[in-house]
């Protein structure tokens, strides 16, 4: 097996990982930057076929263009076979990555809440559809409904519209009363105000309904119609794609499998972005959902701190504090309504990998017994989709993660034995 050795290994090449790499490389140490995607940038800076980049993104890519930084794309970390090493898989080979310090910048995924028809092709995540459009999926002239919760819905709708999509509706589950608080907070943070108003321009004329969600998706072999509910009113609308996600969930699986302490569903860190393990740092969405600014600042602090550049790390503390306050406001504004727990019917599938229905799971008191009896969460995604749904629907918390952290080739694991 091929082995590579780095002073600092960074997992995740989104904004937090890029910022960590750029900052740590100022020390002259050797840095490895690993990501499972074909290119760097994470979800928000996913270049795609057109490679369009904001100035901010271009600047950070430029700062990571250094000889000290080795990039490993299409490389998925699957386990930690021994202290100071991770096992990773590329499409055609297995790697052992050795490190002195590890920075986890594993980002977040979308939260999906099951409803009748959510398994039909054409029903996707909000960021999910955006990612595919960036990857070349034709969206011009397609009728799209964007639904779920969070500021991402606006960003996605705006992006899709700029590519020629016909946005029929943006359905936000949060009631207007909560969002009013969010809007009032905006002027304190100019970067976000600008972002919001420029999005507003792109969405001129698109209906944005609050306290509104999708109750059903129908179609023969793919999505044709959705049913929308707002208060006591319910109506149907035809569409080609439903882009639906209820906020983001931190990707904590790798940190958890290493033994890092978790707090409220995210990785716990101290002021230096250091986890409960002394040589493991964590930055960005995996320490708690907060957006781009928080990710960049935490990434810089983690990178500087892991490289021993503590004075430089400290200069980012005040801005990180501000980003954390913004994140708290976001979290409060988009809290999920309890009514969404009634979305699934008895027959609705909760676990898509193993086809486990809502009613099958009602019999069990917790995640562990449901897994053992129904195979819920034991398919290829390893509970990454249904886990956050069952947490919301049944109040279940997940067990600690055991290796391998993702579905891996048997051959990759066999090399370790």
């Amino acid at each position, binding site marked *: 097996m091929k082995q590579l050795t780095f002073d600092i290994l960074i997992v995740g090449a989104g904004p937090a990982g890029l910022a960590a790499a750029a900052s740590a490389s100022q020390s002259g140490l050797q840095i490895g930057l690993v990501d499972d995607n*074909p290119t760097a940038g994470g*979800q928000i800076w996913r270049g795609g076929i057109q490679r369009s980049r904001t100035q901010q993104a271009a600047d950070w890519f430029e700062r990571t263009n250094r000889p000290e930084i080795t990039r490993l794309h299409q490389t998925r970390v699957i386990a930690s076979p021994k202290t100071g090493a991770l096992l990773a898989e590329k499409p055609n080979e297995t790697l052992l990555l050795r490190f002195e310090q590890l920075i986890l910048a594993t980002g977040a995924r979308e939260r999906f809440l099951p409803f009748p028809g959510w398994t039909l092709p054409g029903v996707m995540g909000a*960021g999910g559809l955006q990612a595919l459009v960036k990857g*070349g999926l034709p969206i011009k002239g397609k009728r799209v409904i964007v639904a779920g919760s969070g500021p991402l819905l606006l960003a996605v709708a705006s992006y899709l519209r700029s590519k020629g999509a016909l946005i029929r509706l943006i359905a936000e589950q949060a009631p207007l009363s909560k969002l009013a608080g969010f809007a009032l907070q905006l002027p304190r943070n100019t970067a976000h105000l600008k972002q919001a108003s420029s999005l507003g321009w792109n969405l001129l004329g698109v209906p944005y309904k609050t306290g509104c969600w999708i109750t059903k998706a129908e179609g023969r072999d793919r999505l044709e119609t959705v049913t929308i509910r707002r208060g006591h009113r319910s109506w149907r609308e035809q569409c080609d794609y439903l882009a639906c996600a209820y906020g983001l969930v931190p990707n904590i699986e790798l940190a958890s499998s290493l033994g890092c302490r978790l707090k409220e569903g995210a990785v716990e860190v101290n002021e230096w972005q250091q986890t409960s393990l002394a040589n493991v740092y964590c930055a960005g969405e995996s320490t708690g959902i907060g957006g781009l600014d928080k990710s960049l600042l935490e990434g810089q602090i983690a990178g500087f701190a892991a490289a021993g550049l503590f004075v430089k790390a400290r200069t980012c503390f005040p801005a990180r504090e501000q980003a954390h306050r913004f994140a708290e406001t976001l979290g409060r504004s988009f809290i999920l309504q309890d009514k969404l727990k009634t979305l699934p019917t008895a027959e609705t599938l909760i676990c898509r990998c193993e086809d486990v229905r809502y009613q099958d799971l009602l019999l069990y008191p917790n995640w562990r017994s449901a897994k053992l009896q129904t195979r819920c969460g034991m398919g290829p995604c390893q509970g990454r989709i249904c886990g956050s749904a069952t947490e919301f629907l049944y109040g279940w918390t997940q067990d600690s993660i055991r290796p391998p952290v993702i579905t891996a080739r048997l051959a990759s694991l066999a090399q370790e034995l």
Partner: protein
Amino acid sequence: MPDTQLTINGETVTVPSGTIVAAALAIANTYTTRRSIHGQPRGPLCGMGICYECRVTINDQPHRLSCQTICESGMKVLTI
């Protein structure tokens, strides 16, 4: 930008260079990537390598994630 030619279920498809396989499937009007264990049609959901719903067979290698794979010239993609 040069185009890339690949086959999807035996049909030749031409896509812009850099297109991911999941998008090429949509270009070819193929919306089902796999069947669930009870035979339901499934397509891409998360678009970022988490859900495994978009898995297809690429060049005889099963379970490849079409959302995280860029099309290459001569690639053979099979859905279920």
